[in-house]
């Protein structure tokens, strides 16, 4: 069972339907016990860093996420969910993140139009099980104005270029994060969802 963490952020239904299409049982909830029982978690999200952290905190979800990660179960952060994995976000004044990964989240510095919206191609930097079957040049759908800057560059699995290099995928042990929306990235997005589902199945 994959738990989609419900913290009141954005359109979660497309993540649910992508998991269903992949044949993976899932539940969207903010119930602590239900999330604890899941074999892996997805932290989705659209919106601002500070509000996102506040919502996680208000629902008492931060210790649950920490506990699940510590137990070795896979966690996937999508878009804002990826950002929240890091220590500090600078959106709307500095605020503290989950700190599961070292680094900051900062506004894009590209001279191109912001937000970065649309299909962009990946450059694979380091192999990761989340990228099984995905190769250099495969396209994914991005919508964001901020990006993560990991301290440990070796956790960067893939980047894309938008007038600057953007961290697109991070992997560290059982923690994964993607800047793009796999649930909106057609068949290649489904490959990534399948990979995450397999990682969760291996755990359970």
């Amino acid at each position, binding site marked *: 069972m994959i738990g989609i963490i419900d913290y009141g952020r954005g359109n979660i*239904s*497309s993540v649910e339907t992508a998991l269903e299409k992949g044949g993976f049982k899932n539940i969207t909830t903010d119930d602590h016990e239900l999330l604890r029982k899941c074999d892996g978690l997805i932290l989705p999200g659209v919106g601002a860093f500070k509000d996102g952290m506040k919502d996680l905190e208000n629902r008492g979800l931060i210790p649950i996420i920490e506990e699940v990660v510590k137990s070795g179960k896979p966690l996937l952060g999508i878009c804002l969910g990826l950002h929240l994995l890091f220590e500090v976000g600078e959106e709307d004044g500095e605020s503290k993140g989950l700190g599961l990964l070292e680094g900051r989240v900062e506004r894009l510095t590209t001279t191109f139009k912001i937000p970065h919206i*649309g299909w962009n191609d990946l450059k694979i930097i380091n192999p990761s099980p989340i990228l099984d079957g995905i190769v250099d040049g495969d396209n994914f759908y991005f919508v964001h104005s901020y990006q993560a800057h990991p301290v440990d560059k070796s956790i960067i699995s893939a980047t894309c270029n938008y007038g600057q290099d953007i961290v697109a995928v991070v992997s560290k042990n059982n923690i994964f994060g993607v800047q793009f929306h796999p649930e909106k990235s057609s068949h290649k997005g489904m490959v990534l969802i399948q990979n995450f589902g397999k990682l969760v199945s291996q755990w359970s």
Partner: protein
Amino acid sequence: MLKKRIIPCLDVKEGRVVKGINFVDIIDAGDPVEMAKFYDQEGADELVFLDITASHEKRDTMIEVVRQTAKQVFIPFTVGGGIKTIDDMRNILRAGADKVSINTPAILNKDLITQGAKIFGSQCIVVAIDAKKSEKGIYEAYINGGRINTGLEVISWAKEAEKCGAGEILLTSMDRDGTKDGYDLELTRLISEAVSIPVIASGGVGNLEHLYDGLVEGKAQAALAASIFHYGTYSIKEAKQYLINKGVDIRW
């Protein structure tokens, strides 16, 4: 690098696709969900549904179309037509659409753009502009399906829409719409150069060169077309292959 986008547009009336469509391998070509699935498989980068349902009571049929599409289609899609309030936006977005497109209500009440962007994010709010060149050679914005000339000059209107929080401009040339003569490249370039948000070119595509012209000469980020795809004149794949061969950065 960021790819230029190819966007088929489907006109939907009371839950059914209108305009003749002729695909042999689709079970029900009038079913917007089937069409959306087909275009996703074909490699469309996004989809636009334009709800042309006239009666207000039957508007809920669009919500159901959106819900079903979101369950089966895994590319972003926009819904336009009949969206007048924040509640309308919320209903469409909650049902699973990624963006809403507003035209007349945006001009009549600019606060709708600002509020929508604040609540749902700029990336959700597409402002549609129907433009027509006046006798004096000025492009003016029309509302109510092209029936009323607002007298608003479109470059300043596009800039203002951006300032209010629009995430994209869907720019239709009324002079070219339905002509198959190609996009109005002058209009497209003027708006693309005036705003820093993406511009979707619309109206007038009759062949693949027109798509190229809109994206390259018109400097649009995305090319929207209806009849050339619906009537099977060209497939999405053919269009994309053509653009790639001409050096346009396109998702394959």
